[in-house]
């Protein structure tokens, strides 16, 4: 599977180009900072620094951009854990348990666990990439709209898994997210739900909505409290809990590997990427855990599952980029732009003609994952001081940064207005027990679901029997039904146990 002569050529290529290594650590720091600032994203960081790569050779240019990608993959987890604000959409599931861990005074452990899971996930994704880059190119081409639709439905059904209040509220909240995501111009050029406003032509921007639903509503909920962590002793910055979280995560390596495998596989599918990978991995970890009820209340496994998956999906995304020249998400789309800037076109021909460069890229990224452990540790140690700030000051500052960041994303007042509106909606939803996470999941998956449903309808001519001729779709459907059955049985058993405990306590 590995071309050994190309592999040794890649090693000498990396050894002979010191610039390729000089740009890696700055790239990691840039990614960490951009990922950690709410409203800014990895793709913004990569887009801002893309022109800087114009005067570099191809290899250092791509390594610089992938270092930003790698750093940003973990950077988004820092505000997710410390402030319940996923810095990027790929860190949504990290907040589910990372933030409760912070509130319990375990922010150091959560950050350490997230860092190691992220580094191992990246490492896993790229090692796997080295082995599968050539054979997978043909496999990905076999996925059609019906298969992609099943992937989207799978994502939507995570709503039921993630919801802790009731399935009805989860469904209502998730569908609200899906319908919000359809506002604006459709693929067929129809204006929907814009009420004549030109600001809504592009729809409701997902990242500002995500920040409003998650962060603004939670921050406003915290008004009146003194600190994020009530216990003064627990607010102290210590290296020991970070290292403990890191060590415990390394010891629980099978869970890290499971998250990494899920992330890589989802990352391979074009258009899905890290924002779905973290949710899918979190749901799988919750379903397979012996203590599923502890998820959402500060279970380290939740942080590990999410971070391992979102980081490993980077390697998966590179599969389609290198093998097919197809970007899997915004980050890989910018990498494709960098390829074009250096007159390089991805695809099977690129792999066969430049195998040494492909291996050099993969090896460089493996080295980046190892370096992330050191660079990330310094970053995490500094970032964890946020729990020492009084909430009365933290709330307006974070809201202001979010407003500016979302203005930067949208280039208009749509961003800040979306944060304010989604914040109010999220606050009301929390008050009446509707899971805002379900709305966010719906918002992220909605466009993909609609696109694939429309394409499936057009290809099949509206005949449901069409799927019978697609074995991959059938296998995925069976797996989906089995998953639903497992969830249903699990919920029933949980209800019976709760009723039993209640009866014993009465």
């Amino acid at each position, binding site marked *: 599977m590995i071309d050994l002569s190309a592999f040794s050529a890649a090693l000498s290529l990396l050894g002979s180009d010191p610039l390729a290594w000089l740009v890696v650590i700055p790239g990691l720091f840039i990614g960490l900072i951009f990922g950690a600032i709410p409203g800014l994203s990895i793709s913004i960081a990569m887009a801002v620094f893309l022109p800087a790569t114009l005067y570099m050779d191809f290899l250092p240019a791509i390594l610089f951009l992938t270092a930003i990608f790698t750093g940003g993959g973990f950077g988004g987890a820092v505000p997710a854990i410390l402030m319940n604000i996923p810095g990027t959409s790929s860190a949504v599931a990290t907040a589910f348990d990372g933030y409760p861990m912070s509130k319990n005074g375990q922010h150091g452990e959560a950050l350490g666990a997230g860092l190691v899971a992220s580094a191992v996930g990246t490492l896993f994704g790229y090692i796997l990439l080295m082995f599968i880059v050539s054979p997978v190119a043909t496999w990905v081409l076999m996925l059609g709209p019906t298969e992609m639709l099943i992937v989207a439905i799978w994502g939507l059904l995570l709503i039921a898994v993630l919801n802790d209040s009731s399935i009805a*509220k989860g469904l*209502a909240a998730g569908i*609200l997210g*899906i319908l919000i995501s359809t506002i604006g111009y459709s693929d*067929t050029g129809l204006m929907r739900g814009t009420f004549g406003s030109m600001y809504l032509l592009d729809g409701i921007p997902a990242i500002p909505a995500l920040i409003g639903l998650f962060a603004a509503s939670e921050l406003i909920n*915290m008004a009146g409290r003194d600190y994020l962590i009530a216990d003064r002793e627990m607010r102290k910055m210590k290296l020991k809990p970070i290292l403990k979280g890191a060590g415990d995560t390394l010891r629980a390596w099978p869970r890290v590997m499971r998250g990494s495998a899920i992330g890589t596989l989802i990352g391979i599918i074009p258009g899905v990427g890290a924002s779905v990978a973290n949710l899918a991995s979190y749901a799988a970890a919750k379903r397979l855990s012996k203590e599923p009820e502890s998820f959402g209340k500060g279970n380290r496994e939740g942080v590990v599952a999410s971070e391992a998956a979102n980081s490993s999906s980077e390697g998966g995304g590179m599969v389609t980029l290198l093998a097919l020249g197809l970007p899997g998400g915004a980050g890989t789309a910018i990498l494709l732009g960098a390829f074009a800037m250096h007159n390089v076109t991805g695809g099977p021909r690129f792999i066969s003609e430049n195998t040494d460069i492909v291996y050099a890229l993969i090896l460089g990224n493996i080295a980046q994952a190892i370096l992330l452990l050191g660079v990330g540790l310094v970053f995490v140690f500094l970032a964890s001081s946020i729990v020492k700030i009084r909430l009365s000051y933290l*709330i307006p500052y974070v809201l202001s940064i979010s407003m500016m960041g979302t203005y930067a994303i949208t280039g208009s007042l749509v961003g*800040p207005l979306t944060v304010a509106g989604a914040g*109010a909606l999220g606050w009301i939803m929390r008050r009446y027990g509707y899971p805002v996470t379900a709305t966010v999941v719906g918002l992220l998956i909605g466009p993909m*679901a609609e696109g694939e449903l429309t394409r499936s309808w057009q290809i099949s001519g509206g005949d449901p029997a069409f799927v019978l001729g697609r074995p991959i779709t059938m296998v995925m459907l069976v797996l989906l039904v089995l998953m639903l059955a497992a969830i249903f049985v699990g919920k029933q058993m949980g209800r019976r146990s709760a009723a039993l405990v209640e009866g014993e306590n009465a």
Partner: protein
Amino acid sequence: MTDAPRTPPAAPDLETAPTPRRNWGALVFALVLAAALAFYAWSVMGVARGLTDYLLILPAAAIGMAAALWAGIADLAPLKGLAQVTRRPLREETKGIALLVLTGVYACLLPWIGFDVGTALFIALALIIQGERSWWRLALAAVPGAALMTWIFTDLLMVRLPVLLF
């Protein structure tokens, strides 16, 4: 993501808890949500040119409405025990509601007062709402904080924010 009370709640005395209350607010929210989903689906159907324009929206809205109504009716069951004791009445949420309104006003006024002046005012007013009364602390938190943030975004990140003074 759970609601954290401002002060640790006293151990609930379930036996002497007040008469069970109904969650009318939840029903109103469920009805508004169902009506919003129905209105959106109806508005899309009104302009649709073909089936693909509402292929996802119509069934999703129908399921969403049914789920919202179901949830609203289920919420009408009287709150009992711990759920009743730990629930925060609306009058205790004044700071949160005031911050929500302030955030909305801040976002709406940005084109006129800019991010520099707007952010300084927002930080100061948010601090006042949360109980800060020291004028020098308010000024120190609002003015340099807003200036630093605006500078980072406009000069360092080259984002064209609407500003009044910078």
